[in-house]
């Protein structure tokens, strides 16, 4: 056990569809603005979580999994916010690049997430993906 208090947890479950990504962004705006983040950092968190959910939605659409959910779990410690984004959007398998590359998901979104938060890991799950991001305040 660490000598720190348990982080508070806020958990949100939304349908894995484009119209609900905004709900996750607003909830994270609420979470982050109650922490010691600057205005810009709050914005970073909102954007990063929006991008992660958007990627989940894009894969769900591709894999015919739009009836699944995304779970967005925020663990709020003193100066550290950890957000776990867990989808059931199926495997993130790149198809061969023979189509209009505008329809490729991920690249720009993934770039943005990397730039906006301090740590990010992407782990395949059974039937989906777990994105973990960490942002430090101050």
């Amino acid at each position, binding site marked *: 056990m660490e000598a720190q208090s348990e982080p508070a947890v806020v958990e949100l479950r939304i349908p894995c569809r*484009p*119209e609900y*990504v*905004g709900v996750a*962004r607003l909830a994270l705006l609420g979470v982050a603005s109650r922490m010691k983040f600057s205005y*810009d950092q709050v*914005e970073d968190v*909102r*954007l990063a979580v*929006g*991008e992660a959910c*958007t990627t989940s*939605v*894009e894969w769900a659409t591709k894999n015919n999994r739009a009836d699944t959910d995304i779970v967005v779990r925020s663990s709020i410690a003193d100066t550290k916010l950890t957000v776990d984004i867990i989808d059931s959007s199926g495997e993130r398998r790149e198809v061969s690049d023979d189509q209009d590359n*505008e329809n490729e998901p991920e690249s*720009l*979104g993934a*770039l*943005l997430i990397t*730039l*906006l938060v301090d740590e990010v890991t992407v782990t395949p799950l059974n039937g989906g993906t777990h994105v973990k991001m960490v942002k430090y305040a101050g």
Partner: protein
Amino acid sequence: MNFSIDTYNMESGVPVIKLTGEVDVYTAPQLKQQMIGMLEAGANQILIDLTEVEYFDSTALGVLIGGLKRMRERDGNLSLICPNPRIRRVFEITGLDKIFDIYNSADEAKIAIQLVP
């Protein structure tokens, strides 16, 4: 839903798409439709006004990039009006501010576009 899209023409005839609110995975397809319509109508200059935009994600960036490519193919251009530093930042951190011509106001854009032959 906090999103709307308006279009008008500048005096010079250059079409402007003015976006308001959140441009994201849910609403960006409307921007794409609007842009495709203008491309099909033969536009070779399009101005996208982001002054009233409060959220702009990678899906929206992707739509703009796609539009810019098609405009460049016909030797045209797709430029942006973006005075809001929060939105501009999304272009800056992705390096896209070097790809797009970004103006601070409609007036600034008007002058710059008229100078281009």
